[in-house]
């Protein structure tokens, strides 16, 4: 009997690659269909939904609507890319949304309180992203606190401490400082162009999203770093025995994640135009969701950059489409959850490959 029903094999055999891609003629039709579904199913769902909304909603077709949808997806995508690095090393960063919120606050304070220009604000934001990443890395790698717990703690610390210097108020141009004098600075025009400007017809956030996706793809799929990330995610102990400095690379993944989160925060604060205290808090679960959705794209079975981008676009398409069709927000949350579950079905249930991401180890 030449055909091997792969699902009967132990997981190790499947994962080792011997059975994953055997010669095509040894596969039954059913298995091949299943492989095709796993590989292209999610892309097909995205294309189908996009076509459905395009055909049924005239306003969905305009280039303006398309770009504002991409803009909408950009922050989620960028945070999701950060999460992709952490998930590649088998971790989880719950502080990602509050790190984005911290950027919002830091940028607003730099310009409004200290009257510095937009370039300074960008530098401060990126530095604060690095700082948060290093703190996370210290807690997780050196202090050996489990990642979920360490980043949960950081999430609350950031959310609370960023409000201490401003008495819990949103930082806006012309606000009155605690000592009674008006704030000297305001958001500069050039800083507001981070979200408002365009390169040709393409808004900057979309450009930034595409550049960062390419960079992440390159790091994860084409460099030694990326290979080591995935190796650690698959088996940290084996990686250590193979001579990898596991702690260093795990720490690096958290720093990259926080820097991406702070870039997402930059776009947010440029969009809001003031230091909104609540900004970013809703991004955490979306970032996790799109990175998880990404695992199912092209049957990759592991966190990956283009998958995360596609996940963010799919959620953007669904939310924009449903809004234009007049559904209330609670339908949108439902749809978001369903998209995630369908993606996970592709990854965990239908796929013959075992997904390499197992959180909360």
């Amino acid at each position, binding site marked *: 009997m030449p055909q091997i029903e792969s699902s009967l094999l132990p997981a190790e055999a499947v994962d080792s690659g011997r059975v994953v891609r055997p010669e095509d003629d040894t596969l039954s039709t059913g298995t091949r269909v299943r492989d095709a579904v796993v590989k292209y199913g999610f892309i097909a769902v995205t294309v189908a939904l996009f076509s459905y909304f395009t055909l049924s909603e005239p306003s969905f077709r305009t280039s*303006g609507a398309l770009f504002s949808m991409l803009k909408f997806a950009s922050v989620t995508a960028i945070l999701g890319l950060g999460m992709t690095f952490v998930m590649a090393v088998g971790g989880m960063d719950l502080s990602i949304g509050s790190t984005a919120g911290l950027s919002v606050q830091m940028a607003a304070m730099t310009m409004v309180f200290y009257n510095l220009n937009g370039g300074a604000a960008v530098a401060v934001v990126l530095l604060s992203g690095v700082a948060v990443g290093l703190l996370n890395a210290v807690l997780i790698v050196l202090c050996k606190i489990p990642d979920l717990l360490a980043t949960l703690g950081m999430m609350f610390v950031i959310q609370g401490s960023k409000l201490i210097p401003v008495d819990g108020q949103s930082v806006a141009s012309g606000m009155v400082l605690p000592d009674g004098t008006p704030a000297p600075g305001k958001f500069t025009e050039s800083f507001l162009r981070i979200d408002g400007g365009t390169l040709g017809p393409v808004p900057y956030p979309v450009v930034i999203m595409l550049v960062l996706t390419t960079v992440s793809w390159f790091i994860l799929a084409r460099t030694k770093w990326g290979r080591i990330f995935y190796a650690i995610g698959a088996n940290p102990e084996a990686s250590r025995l193979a001579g990898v400095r596991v702690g260093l690379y795990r720490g690096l993944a958290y720093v990259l994640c926080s820097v991406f989160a702070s870039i997402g925060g930059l776009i947010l604060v440029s*969009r809001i*135009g003031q230091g909104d205290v*609540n900004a970013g808090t809703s991004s955490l679960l979306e970032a996790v969701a799109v990175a998880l959705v990404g695992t199912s794209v092209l049957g990759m079975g592991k966190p990956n950059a283009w998958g995360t981008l596609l996940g963010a676009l799919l959620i953007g398409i669904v939310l*924009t489409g449903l809004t234009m069709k007049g559904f209330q927000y609670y339908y949108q949350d439902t749809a978001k959850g369903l998209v995630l579950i369908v993606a996970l079905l592709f990854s965990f249930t239908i796929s013959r490959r075992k997904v390499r991401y197992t959180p909360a180890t």
Partner: protein
Amino acid sequence: MRMKKLIVAGVAAVSALSLAACSQGSGATTVKPKNQESASVQAASGDAPAPFDQPGVRVAIVQNSGQGDYFQQYLNGTKQQAAALGIDLSVYDAQGDNATQATQLDQAISSGVQGIIVRHGFPDTLCPGVNKAIDQGIKVVIYDVEIQKCAPDAVQTQQSDNKMASLVLDKMAEDIGTGKPVGYVNVAGIAPLDRRDVVWQEYLGENDWTQKFKTGKFTNSTATDTAPMVDSVLKSNPDVVAVYAPYDELTKATLSALKQNPSLQGKVKVYGADISTADIELMTNPDSPWVATGATDPNAIGAAVVRTLALHMAGELDGLNVEFPPILVTQDFLRSEGIKNMDDLRAAEPALNIADVSSADWIPNVTF
């Protein structure tokens, strides 16, 4: 095996029975969603000008948050009035996320609507979108955002906080007279409360009242957090005859603080703001010190904003500012009319419909 099946069947039967026993009334009763106040529509007498001479005018509402009783009622009013005008309304709801609201405003603009209503949000966040919409010839009406500081051509509407305060303070002046010691519960930094504060300062001077204390704290649970503060200032100032608390959460805090001080029972009157079914209950309780409040109906405001936009789109709106006036509601009125909830109040006070605000003979008014 057999035993197991029997047990399973038995458990199923018992739970089915107990479920039936727990159900309320017959299955045929349909529950009317609490927030969907049905509107009655008055027929329009005049011919509608363009673009309302044909149905299907496309309008979007871009709201900062749609969650909670108040905003659901507001949106209900908006939807009912839009339907009466034959408007095809799209609803964008940012769920309290300002960045999302900016994007959704963008989406509304590119979706090709002819008019946009923006409800709540930050002016700095909304101005770029609002100005872009106006540049493209889309008519924009804003509710409760100080938009004109950066988008001077937008129509700005709000509930009249001025009137909300002066109606109640007139009543307070009538009740207690001049030259009395009074207390004040309010917080700074929240636009509508700041506007009410301006009126309070005027009345304080005109009536020669002595403000013995000012306290209050705005948090996620304002009433709970403010109550102990009011309690302690009342203990150190037992001579006040009236307290003004111009926001219903602050009024609730004042009421629960007074409960902690039985010696002040019947000596301190409370003047508040806002109304809801819960507030009506608090006002009509026996011995309730809350004697007057200012009231608006979010359904009616939601509808009036649509009428304002319709007038603006038809080129018939005078000026760029519209205010929606509240009415005075007193404890005596609630008690004598036997009013128990918002439905009763709407029935007893048709003025809550503010039907004369932004009206025209071609607009079929909705009332609640």
